């Protein structure tokens, strides 16, 4: 890439270092403040996440999944990550995704999940009501 071709398309990260060649073919660095091609790539990643969050929300409202699935998607987490942070086994978490099991969870377990998702235990327990009122 030539120095004068560095894209300046204003991305989220701000100024980034690019390696480019000058008019004599010598390598130097230049600053790019974003490139449309990769801004769109990041948009795709976030719209995929948004889609998963909406699906989880729908499942929560339909009583097909517990609030844990919704917050897990919201925090871009998967079972191994939730397991690593909470110390639960993946099979336990998979059970906690069922509304019937979730409703019987101990205060201590609710507390652990709420901490990970950065919400209060009440917000976790009542997520369905809160989301359906929005």
């Amino acid at each position, binding site marked *: *890439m030539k120095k004068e071709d560095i894209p300046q398309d204003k991305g*989220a*990260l*701000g*100024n*980034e*270092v*690019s*390696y*480019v*060649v000058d008019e004599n*073919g*010598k*390598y130097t*660095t230049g600053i*790019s403040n974003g*490139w*449309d*091609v*990769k801004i*769109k*790539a*990041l948009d*795709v*990643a*976030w719209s*995929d996440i948004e889609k998963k969050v909406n699906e989880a929300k729908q499942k929560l409202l339909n009583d097909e999944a517990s609030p844990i699935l919704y917050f897990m998607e919201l925090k*871009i*987490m998967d079972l*191994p*990550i939730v397991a*690593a*942070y909470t110390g639960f086994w993946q099979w336990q978490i998979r059970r906690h995704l069922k509304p019937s099991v979730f409703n019987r969870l101990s205060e201590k377990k609710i507390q652990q999940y709420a901490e990970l998702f950065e919400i209060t235990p009440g917000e976790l327990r009542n997520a369905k009501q809160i989301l359906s009122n929005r």
Partner: protein
Amino acid sequence: MKLDFTHAQAAHCENGVTTSLLRHYGVQQITEPLAFGIGSGLFFIYIPFMKVNGGPAISFRTMPGMIFKRTCKSLNIPILRKKFLSEEKAQLELDARLNAGEPAACQVGVYYLPYFPREYRFHFNAHNLIVVGKEADNYIISDPIMETLVSMSSYELKRVRFAKGPLAPHGQLYYPRERKPVTNEQIKAAIVTGIKRNVRDMLHIPGNFAGISGIKYTAKKIKKWRDSLGLEKSRSYLAQLVRMQEEIGTGGGGFRFIYGAFLQQAYAYHQVDELMDISRQFTRAGDRWRDAAVQASGIYKGRLALQQDYNHMGDMLLEIADMEKAAFKELAVAVKKMK
């Protein structure tokens, strides 16, 4: 206290940490391209049985941690690298290092990194930064991705040092153990080692999904994505490929431009004329990677949707594979002239 430390922005975090730390510890000659080349940073791999954020696991560079490790080893600089079980001990040891007047690097996760824009905060745990001071409860951070120094509270730093999930850092702390200058002879020898190892990794690595064969493997996969994954998922896969190639501090063109810069800088130490021409070949390869990214963006923006568009993308990668194969073969010959 804030140590006397020169912050420098780099394209990639590990290159940047390696360069700034080694400079601080007395290696005046080191630059980002030299660290990248000596650490044999250029690579390609598509791990077929693994997923990252639900997409393909593709990398344009060597494994995290290798650039620092190899560069220090080649330059005969002893390093300390330590993981911790206790969060408290991890902090005490960092503080002790700072109190001794020396900066130290940490591996961290970016999800909870407070100064990163939200759009970039995925659960990626192999980010690197240097801690250069502490004032009250705040750590002063030289993060090579950032333009200036930033800071984090002790809680925030603890949280990113103990991020969980794949490649969890476990509080990892690392730094050169002594301050010592390096001779130009040592740099010369390290360049040769770095190039030889990179030639081996790209041309001769076993299996079909890494090195040059990995690029061809990916090319063939892309041609099949439209049928096997459907339009929507293949768009996400292509976007992920482009993010790995351009987004994660690669300096553009999937690190190919940094490697081109490395070969030019290597020429200053080894006057082997072929180096300059091979550098141009890597520049062209990087340009073609960017052309391929433009083609991919046509697909994930929804402008291109036909099988022939995927075929075209795959063919571009096959062409790149041939370009890089030729360049590395010439490099394998040229390195023999470098004494």
